């Protein structure tokens, strides 16, 4: 469906027309071999604990998702109604592949899975999220994370 021709007509224009300004810098971090790398997930699906309030519209906040956080306690409060939720309803890994990362760590394919993963509201203008990026980077460095796997929905 994310082939442009597969996106339903009513949604296609909004998705394709979304402004994605080109970057002004091109950072490139050389990382350690995968088998030694510690990996965290950053999802834009607005995932959070069941006990927490939903993500407000336009928020720049991020929420922490501990690696041990049970799937049964996870809700999605993304503002958009124009993407599929049925897959996530069946299996969180289709949007947030935490179990797959744990399997790769157990097999030695990756070094380790970060203790904490992160969730943001994907519809928020990235230009307003500089402080969020600073805070996330601080937490990632503290947890000695080498690689962030970004999973937008």
């Amino acid at each position, binding site marked *: *469906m*994310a*082939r*442009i021709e*597969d*996106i*339903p*007509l*009513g*949604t296609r224009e*909004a*998705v*394709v027309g979304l402004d*994605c300004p*080109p*970057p002004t810098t*091109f*950072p490139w*971090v*050389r990382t350690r*071999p*995968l088998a030694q*790398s510690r990996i965290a997930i*950053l999802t834009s699906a607005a995932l959070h604990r*069941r006990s927490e*309030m*939903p993500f407000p519209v336009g928020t720049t906040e991020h929420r922490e998702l501990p690696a041990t956080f049970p*799937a*049964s306690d996870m*809700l999605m409060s993304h503002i958009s*109604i*124009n993407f*599929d*939720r*049925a*897959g*996530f*309803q*069946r*299996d969180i890994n*289709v*949007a947030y*592949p935490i179990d*797959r*990362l744990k399997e*790769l760590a157990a097999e030695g394919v*990756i070094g380790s899975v970060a203790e904490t993963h992160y969730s943001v509201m994907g519809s928020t203008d990235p230009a307003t*999220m*500089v402080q969020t*990026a600073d805070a*996330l*980077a601080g937490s990632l*460095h503290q947890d000695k994370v080498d*690689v*962030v*796997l*970004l*999973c*937008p*929905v």
Partner: protein
Amino acid sequence: MIEARGVATVVIGLVRPHMESSKPPRGLWVPFPLGRPLGEPEDKTFQHRVLGAALALLARDAGPVVLEDFPEDAPSMRDQPGWQPQMVVPEFVTPAATDVKAWMSGLETELASVLPHWSAATHRFGRTTVGISRVAPSDWAAFAVRFLDGSVPESPIGGLSSAVVMRYIADDMKALYMEAVQAIGPQPSSGQINRWFWNHTLAAELLCALRAAALASTHTGFNTAGSRFLAPAPFVTKA
């Protein structure tokens, strides 16, 4: 933004034009439905192929921008031939927009037929994604129908406006029905689930009626939440 702060990144992206313009350092474009970056639910092998292709980009030394395409479609992207919902909802006649009694009666009857399947789905999947409204399913209809004549009732949830609660009830309602229809049988496509819900349930009729009421409302919160966040674009022609 994260790479600029010293941590390597790799993105699994669903919209190629966005990736072409935003130029992340390492990007794997996947041709899956929006909402499914790993492609196929309950298919570890497929998900590992996607994840493996993304992580393999970390070994590249060809930056600052590497963009590759994942070569496979996900099996459930396309309609499951012959799929029929195993759950039968009662026949209904769409009530007049402000006939609150008829809406309540019809919705209660429909929900009673859906709840056992939802229960089976929560057992099958080990969880539910219903819950962001913080309102019990038995109270959804009574709260939602009060918006049909343009009224905006008091919010039952502290910290959330009534329009936002109504919107979250809509999310919960869709989640409950869509989980329920997946409780038994082979996996339908996302399109099949959506077409079933939006074309064959009174709950969807209610959401479209609420959208129509919101469009006519001068209440800013209800107008915004109801007109934009209840029915997805491909189905709004019903409203």
